[in-house]
Structures are given as structure tokens and as C-alpha cells.
């Protein structure tokens, strides 16, 4: 069963150049899907379509059985509670402390819980991503890059979302931290096997490590999809270059 079904998705901003040019992609439920591609191939635009932040020029997106093209803006905002997202730079609210950042979605959507229960969940999520109590009262500006990612991830999983999205989670991190974040993604997914994970990346090594299902975009289209073996066995020139050169841009 698929969590997300994208059918012939096309998007142009200026009426001439298509950023997405007929993408058809199925993202299986309960699996980790990694969407890879060089910069400017439309990965982020695709994910913004899935979140309903951008409306397509044509085509359809079905998320958890709902055609999101049929939702109006307010319905879409409510529908987004199915998603959790770790942004590239974590996007933590900078006047909230670590614990307040994680508490925020819980306070917004779990009105049924007591104050203590909400705090309990926030602490649980923070410990799940390996942030100890000494960091709870720190502001994002007082945290290191890795800690901010952890806090952002704790906030993203605070409501146990059905779909967890990672936007270039390892961009700009050193190899050690990259591995730590990759492990964090795996552990988080293993912790809730019901949830669907989508990782946007241009790190092919991470894609092979994490992805049950990998899709490569190029020129606004899906160039190749499958598992790691599909990529190694592919005779498509661009895929071979990508595999050979790893994350490096041409």
C-alpha cells in the first residue's frame, strides 16, 4: 500500500519552464523512501507539493487516501497534522527553549492531555533523539548544529505523524555528524514502523544506507526508482555518474 501517490505532476512558475515535468511516483507506506538528485532537479518543489504548500499546474497527489488537490487552504492546513518535518536547518522557533519547541505541537493538538502528560511526551521525544535534560532550557542559539537537528526531529515526531519528511538532513554536516543523523533517522523509523519516512537528499551513500526505496529525479522527471541494487545495475549514464561520484556535483 502506498502512503503517497503522485500522478503526472507538472509545475511551472513562469508558464514556460517546467520545474516538475510529469512526475509519477508511489511512496510505499511504512518504508523509508529517499528522493535523490542534483541541485535544482525539483526535489524541494516536489516535497512542497506533497505538503500542499505549492499547488500543481497539473497532475494529482494522493496522500493517505486523500486527493490533496481537492482540499481548500484551511482543510490543507489541518491535513498537514499528518506530517512531521525536519527542516534543513531545523527551523526551531528561536524565542522558545528546546523543551518549549517540542511542547508546542503537543500543546496545540493534544488539548485532551494534562500539562504533566504533555511535558512527559516532550521529554520522551527528546530522550528518544538523544537530547539530555541539561539542554531542555537552552535556546536554539545555544545549541550546536547537531543538537538543533535532534531538537527539530523531536518536534517533528512529537505527535507521532503518519509521514515524516526530512529535507536535506545532512547537508553541511561533517561525516561523523552525517552518520549520527542517518542513524537517528533509522532509529526514529524503527521506533515507529507504521510511519512512512521520506528523505530528500543528494547524498547517495545515505540513500543506500537508509532507503528501502530510492527515486532519482532529473529534469523534473523520475529518472530511476527502485532499491540500491537497481541503481548499481543501472546502465543510465547519469545514474552511473551519480553512483560513481557520490554526492559531488558535476
Amino acid at each position, binding site marked *: 500500500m502506498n502512503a503517497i501517490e503522485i500522478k503526472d505532476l507538472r509545475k511551472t512558475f513562469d508558464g514556460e519552464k517546467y520545474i516538475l515535468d510529469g512526475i509519477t511516483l508511489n511512496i510505499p507506506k511504512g518504508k523509508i523512501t529517499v528522493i535523490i538528485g542534483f541541485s535544482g532537479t525539483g526535489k524541494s518543489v516536489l516535497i512542497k507539493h506533497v505538503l500542499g*504548500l505549492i499547488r500543481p499546474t497539473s497532475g494529482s497527489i494522493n496522500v493517505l487516501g486523500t486527493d490533496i488537490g481537492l482540499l481548500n487552504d*484551511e482543510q490543507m*492546513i489541518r491535513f*498537514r*497534522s499528518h506530517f512531521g518535518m525536519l*527542516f534543513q*536547518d531545523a527551523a526551531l522557533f*528561536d524565542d522558545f527553549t528546546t523543551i518549549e519547541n517540542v511542547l*508546542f505541537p503537543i500543546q496545540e*493538538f493534544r488539548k485532551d492531555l494534562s500539562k504533566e502528560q504533555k511535558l512527559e511526551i516532550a521529554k520522551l521525544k527528546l530522550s528518544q533523539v538523544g537530547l539530555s535534560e541539561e539542554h531542555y532550557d537552552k535556546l536554539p542559539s545555544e545549541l550546536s548544529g547537531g543538537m538543533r537537528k535532534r531538537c527539530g526531529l523531536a518536534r517533528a515526531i512529537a505527535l507521532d505523524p503518519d509521514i515524516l519528511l526530512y529535507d536535506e538532513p545532512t547537508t553541511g554536516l561533517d561525516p561523523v555528524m552525517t552518520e549520527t543523523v542517518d542513524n537517528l533517522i533509522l532509529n526514529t523509523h524503527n521506533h515507529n514502523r507504521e510511519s512512512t519516512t521520506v528523505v530528500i537528499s543528494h547524498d547517495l551513500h545515505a540513500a543506500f544506507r537508509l532507503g528501502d526505496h530510492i527515486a532519482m529525479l532529473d529534469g523534473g522527471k523520475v529518472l530511476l526508482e527502485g532499491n540500491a541494487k537497481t541503481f548499481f545495475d543501472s546502465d543510465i549514464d547519469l545514474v552511473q555518474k551519480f553512483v560513481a561520484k557520490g554526492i559531488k556535483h558535476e
Partner: protein
Amino acid sequence: MIFVTNFIQQLRTAIEDYMIFLGKFSIFGYESVRLFFKKPYRMDQLVKHLEFVANKSIFIICLTAFFTGMVLSFQIYLGYKTINSENLVGPTVGLGIFRELGPVLTGLIVSARAGGAMAARLGTMRVTEQIDAFAVMGINPKQFLIGPRIIAALIAMPLLNGVFCFVAMLGAYFISVYLLNLDSAVFIDKLKVWLNPQHLNEGLFKAFVFGGLFGTICTYRGYHTKGGAKGVGEATNSGVVNSMVLIIVSDFFLTKMIRLFLVWTGL
């Protein structure tokens, strides 16, 4: 001829762009205010922003108002002295402050202080994807971030205008009575005769409109920031400049509209 045609074309484009901006920012303001009155109500955010816009502006408003009252009285005194009409300093200052200078100066000061901060704050949130984070969480950023700020500006401006007018009249009284040796009783008596609640209402109404203007423009600019730190700087700058220009321009039209309304209603 080509020069004239190009000039007209450029002027037309500029006017069109400005009209598009006005339209977009009106819809943005309307939508944000409408969302504020829908559940979940963001009263905590409103109180937070009211504290920032109103409470934290009081000192600068009082300081500016006191000196405005003093300098205006002094200049008017110098003019009236030549025609032996010094007794009219109080009501002239009063009318000027209550109907024009109070709301306009309050608008300019608060838009520079609080409006600039609003644009910069929202701009930073935009470029660091914090606004997107709200949207992805299923929280309407306009309802959470924009609506309370605009409503806070709408509420705070008439209140601050009241403070400005009161303190400016204190400044006027102080310089007139203690430094220019005008009669205290005459100053107050003339004020009572010349000023009526309608003048105060006019100023409060203008302040309310100016609050809506700068609140909407600055949040609009901040919310639609593009680029990094440079974009935040540009958003802040254009938010404050647009607010100030619109406050001064709209003041003229508001004054004309109020006059027409008063004539029409026979008040």
C-alpha cells in the same frame, strides 16, 4: 517623443505595481484579521504583542509628545504675539495635536519602532523556515503570527494617541504658563471652549486606521521576505518606509473624508 512614451509607460507600470501591492496587502490584512476571530483564538499572542507595541512604546511617545507640545506652543506663541493673540496658543496647539499631529506622529513613531521590529522578526522567521514550520505543523501562520500583530496595532494606536495628546498638552501648558507667562486659567478655559470630543474622536479614528496600515504593511513585508539577511533588511526598510508614506498620504484623504462625513451628517 520616445522619452515621453517611455516615461508614461514606466509611470503606468509603477502605478500598476503599486495597485497590485495595495490589493495584495489588503487581502492579506483582511484574511489575517478574519482568522484571528476564528478558533483557536490566539489571545496569549495578542497580549504579548500588545505589550510590545503599546507598553514598550510609551516612553518614546511621552518624550516625543512633551517636546512636540512645547515646540509647537513656542512657535505659535511667536506668531500670535505679533497680532496680540497669545491667548489662542492653547486651543491652536490643542486642535493641531488632537486632529493631526497626535495621530500622525504616533503613527510614524510606532511604525518605525514596532512596525520595523515586526517586519524584521517575521522576515527572520521566513528565511529560517520557521513560518514554513508552522504551516507544516498544521498551524495557520497568518492566524498565529499575523492576526494578533495587526489587532495589537489596531488596539494600541488609539491608546498611544491618547497618551501622546495628553502629554503634548502638558508640554504646551508647561511652556505657555511657566516659560511664556501666559495665564493658566485662560489657557485651560480657551481649550474647553475650542476643543470638543469630536476632535479627539477624529484623532482616535485616524490612529486606528494608521495602526491597521502599519500593522498590515510591516507584517506583509516581513511575511513575504525573500533571500537571507539582505532580504530581511530590505523587508524591514520597505515596511517602515511604506508605512510612513502611507500614513502621511492617507492622513490627507482621511481628513477630507471626515470633513465630508461631518458635513453630510450635519455634525
